[in-house]
């Protein structure tokens, strides 16, 4: 169901010469640079409006979430329905460490990211050990999300409960200005894309693809399926934790809904599925499109949810496998019509 479109992955291994390898590295970097260049123009257009910059920063944060989720779900087929919870561990973790414990900002962010990476890895390890299928992994992680949400409410003394947490750290620095946080999150998106792209080109990426295409065959061929699943979860969860904690620092206020299941997980899944699960740029494209749609229908007030649902149905009826795989198919069909016959 999941297609793969990294240009040049074939040549990198089949050819094997250094010249080809460096060319394919370039083939990875220039599209990412192009995405970065396009997105870096947004503040020139919307930079005057604090509200619109806030929307854009949130959109980039979701792009980060979607890339991390894509690494876990798209690359290794583990349906982690705890994107918001892992991001929340990063967000609440760094806020608590910095404001309540008094650690420096950078150290807090680092420790919180590490915590969410380890918890993501642990969840994956449990799922792998018990060989849970997609739905079961989904439900276990969904339960984890709900528990996390309830813990935030239950431990109101530390987390601020329903009312949320006003973060002191980073106040009065560039992190709370209008435009710099945008470039911070954009840099994060690009770093994540590069990381995911490099992983896909490495032997880890080949293992990912093998286990996704045919898990049993991969196992027989000597790929340690469970180890690579846990690796993917460790890296993906670190991405989620880091983006969640940087968002908290730039936003200044977080509450349980900032990382809620309905607010984050559902949205991230829709973005990734719409862009194209398992593709490198699908998550970013999906995040941009869904953020724009959300903004366009904001004025509808109470009708917003109804229209949003109808748009989701329409989008997935139109491109059930996501935009990038569908476009890829169209291009390939045009290039080699005879091949499609098989």
């Amino acid at each position: 169901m999941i297609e793969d479109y990294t240009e040049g992955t074939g040549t990198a291994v089949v050819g094997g010469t250094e010249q080809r390898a460096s060319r394919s590295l370039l083939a990875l970097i220039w599209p990412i640079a192009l995405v970065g260049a396009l997105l870096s123009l947004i503040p020139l257009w919307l930079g005057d409006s604090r509200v619109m910059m806030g929307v854009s920063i949130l959109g980039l944060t979701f792009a980060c979430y979607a890339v991390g989720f894509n690494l876990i779900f798209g690359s290794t087929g583990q349906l982690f329905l705890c994107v918001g919870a892992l991001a929340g561990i990063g967000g609440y973790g760094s806020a608590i460490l910095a404001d309540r414990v008094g650690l420096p900002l950078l150290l807090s962010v680092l420790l919180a990211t590490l915590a969410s990476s380890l918890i993501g890895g642990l969840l994956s390890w449990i799922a792998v050990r018990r060989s849970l299928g997609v739905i079961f992994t989904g439900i276990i992680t969904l339960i984890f999300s709900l528990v996390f949400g309830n813990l935030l409410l239950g431990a109101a003394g530390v987390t601020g409960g329903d009312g949320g947490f006003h973060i002191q750290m980073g106040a009065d620095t560039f992190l709370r200005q209008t435009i710099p946080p945008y470039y911070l999150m954009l840099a994060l998106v690009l770093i994540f894309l590069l990381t995911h792209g490099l992983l896909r080109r490495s032997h880890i990426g080949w293992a990912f693809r093998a286990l996704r295409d045919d898990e049993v065959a991969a196992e027989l061929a000597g790929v340690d399926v469970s180890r690579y699943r846990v690796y993917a979860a460790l890296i993906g969860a670190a991405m989620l934790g880091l983006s969640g904690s940087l968002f908290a620092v730039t936003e200044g206020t977080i509450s349980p809904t900032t990382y809620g299941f309905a607010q984050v997980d559902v949205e991230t899944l829709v973005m990734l599925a719409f862009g194209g699960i398992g593709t490198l740029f699908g998550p970013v494209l999906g995040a941009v499109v869904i953020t724009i749609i959300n903004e366009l229908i904001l004025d509808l007030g109470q009708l917003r949810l109804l229209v949003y649902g109808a748009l989701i149905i329409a989008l997935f009826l139109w491109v059930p496998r996501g935009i990038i795989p569908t476009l890829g198919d169209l291009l390939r069909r045009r290039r080699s019509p005879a091949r499609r016959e098989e």
Partner: protein
Amino acid sequence: MANVLDGIVLGLQFGLLAAGLTLVYGLGGVLNLAYGQMAVLSAMAVALSMEAGLAPIPAVAVGLVAGGLLGLLLDLTILRPVYRLHGEARVLLSLLLTLGMAFVVDGFLTWRYPTKALTLRIGGGPVEILGVRMVRGGVVASVITILVLGGLLLFFRKTTLGRAVRSVIEDEEGSRLVGIDPQRMLRLILVLTGVLAALVAVTRSLVTPVSVTAGFELTVSALIVTVVGGLGSVGGAILAGVILGIISTVAASSIGTVLSLIILLVAAAVTILIRPSGLLGVEE
């Protein structure tokens, strides 16, 4: 003791809700995330009919028909493209499309009837069971639920149609070979689960008000109970529902709501980890 009985009342409803979800998943590999919304929409149909002057029983009938029609509507519209896919892609697309549907229903209801809720009251004092005084509504709800669940199990064990449905769950290819049309069975079950969703909404409203925003929570509870019970197993769904229902009410009365919810969730997680195929699920 009173808490255990309350837990059984709640658990039976969980079980009935999960039974609907599990059947559709087992039969067609379709995960219906609009399931809770189907229940809520049927509840609103009952509430509106009663406001229009209908007596409670005919109003409930209207609700049940509405639920069934919603199931049919899903089958005839947004699930069409889902049927063309197989395996994981099918589950994923069904999940996304019914999620969209859930938003549409939630959006429509909160827009048109933001504060409406369905409450059905049954007159008369509490009933004494095993020396415990129970609210009459809860007892009636449980009796209805037990009858329906019993009927459901009988339907699957004894009738030809029910056996046909089970054979599709067990082996779709094989059932096709003996002349069963899986697609028709799926449509039948979607209508049936729509009626079940409506029934859950009605029996629930005998105990607590069912509000327009209850859909999401109902779906999530049903999902968890379904997986704990074992995908595709009606008996498992009932068992899991009752166990989780008892844990939930006993914990809630002794240690407060937030912590009890956490205990409930952890219990569900532990069950899944001990028996990944569910309480009564089939090992794959």
